[in-house]
């Protein structure tokens, strides 16, 4: 896999270039790293608060109930109802989505229609709520403007697109 080579190559490129250009690499590294500690700590309250709220919503069964509510709508579009929980949870919780994808692939098989659809859905969008929490939390953005609307609408387009693409390509 290329990805195994990628990160070491980046490190190599950065360090070799820096040494040639006489940048004091280790000192600069330490200086830049300090910012990482600061960002991680300022991130914690945002992340922790959001995660607890999502966990309560999920553990209570409310998430499952809402998903059930939308099931008929989903089958109307010719998409299997089994995929709906994943479509719902993908923008909200990354870990939950990943475990759902794994579960779907395990149950229906990686090369089944549902398995393919779950794979594409998992791979083609990211966890909007997590990204907003982390990115805005780390720099202390309090008023997020249209960010959430933009992110969730784009997720919707991405999920609909993956269903259509998988139907065209694999069935």
């Amino acid at each position, binding site marked *: 896999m290329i990805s195994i080579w990628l990160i070491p190559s980046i490190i190599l490129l950065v360090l070799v270039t820096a040494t040639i250009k006489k940048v004091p690499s280790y000192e600069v590294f330490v200086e830049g790293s300090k910012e990482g500690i600061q960002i*991680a700590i300022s991130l914690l309250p945002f992340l922790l608060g959001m995660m607890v*709220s999502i*966990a309560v919503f999920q553990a209570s069964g409310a998430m499952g109930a809402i998903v059930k509510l939308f099931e008929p709508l989903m089958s109307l579009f010719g998409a299997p109802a089994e995929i709906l929980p994943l479509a719902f949870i993908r923008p909200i919780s990354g870990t939950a989505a990943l475990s759902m994808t794994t579960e779907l692939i395990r149950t229906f098989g990686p*090369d089944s229609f549902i398995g393919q659809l779950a794979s594409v859905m998992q791979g083609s969008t990211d966890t909007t709520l997590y990204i907003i929490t982390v990115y805005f939390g780390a720099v202390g953005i309090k008023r997020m403007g249209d960010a959430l609307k933009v992110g969730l609408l784009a997720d919707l387009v991405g999920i609909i697109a993956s269903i259509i693409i998988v139907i065209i390509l694999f069935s």
Partner: protein
Amino acid sequence: MVNLIWAFLAVTGIIYAAFNGTMAEVNKAIFSTLDEAIMITLSLAGVLIFWLGLMKIAEEAGLLAGLAKIFRPFVKRIFPEIPENHPALGYILSNMTANMFGLGNAATPMGLKAMKELKELSGSDKASRSMITLLAINTSSLTLIPTTVIAIRMKYDSQDPTSIVGATILATIISTIAALLIDRYFHYKRERAMRL
């Protein structure tokens, strides 16, 4: 908006649990999530500390500026508000490149650093136009190689673990273009509202 969503999730969850008889699960979820949040932050801290250190070297060595220079015409269209040669551009590009190669671990620190630069540019606690655009690009995910998914497919003996790569790229392209268009739409809507 985030206040409403946050409260909504927890309040609905607790009320639903009261009727559904799942209060024990809710209780457990609260405390296990606290641990999980700390663990995530800790592992994120490691990645952040390492990559921000390395990227600082890249910045001083002129690599980020070089990257920004190559893609300037393209990025300028997406982020018209950022002044030319601003370090934010280099970090945004590193963030996008890392995302494309599925290096989520490297993408987040670069994205956060870019956000920090953008905040210094705007000097307010309200999300600026560029910040929303950067967020939109990240939430729609630019993955070219969905490594995690391929790994799961391999684990469950797929005949062709990488068969979904083409479809994933296509879906990603569509959702990213949609994200940029929706972002533009809301931007112009905001501008119109300001003028009126």
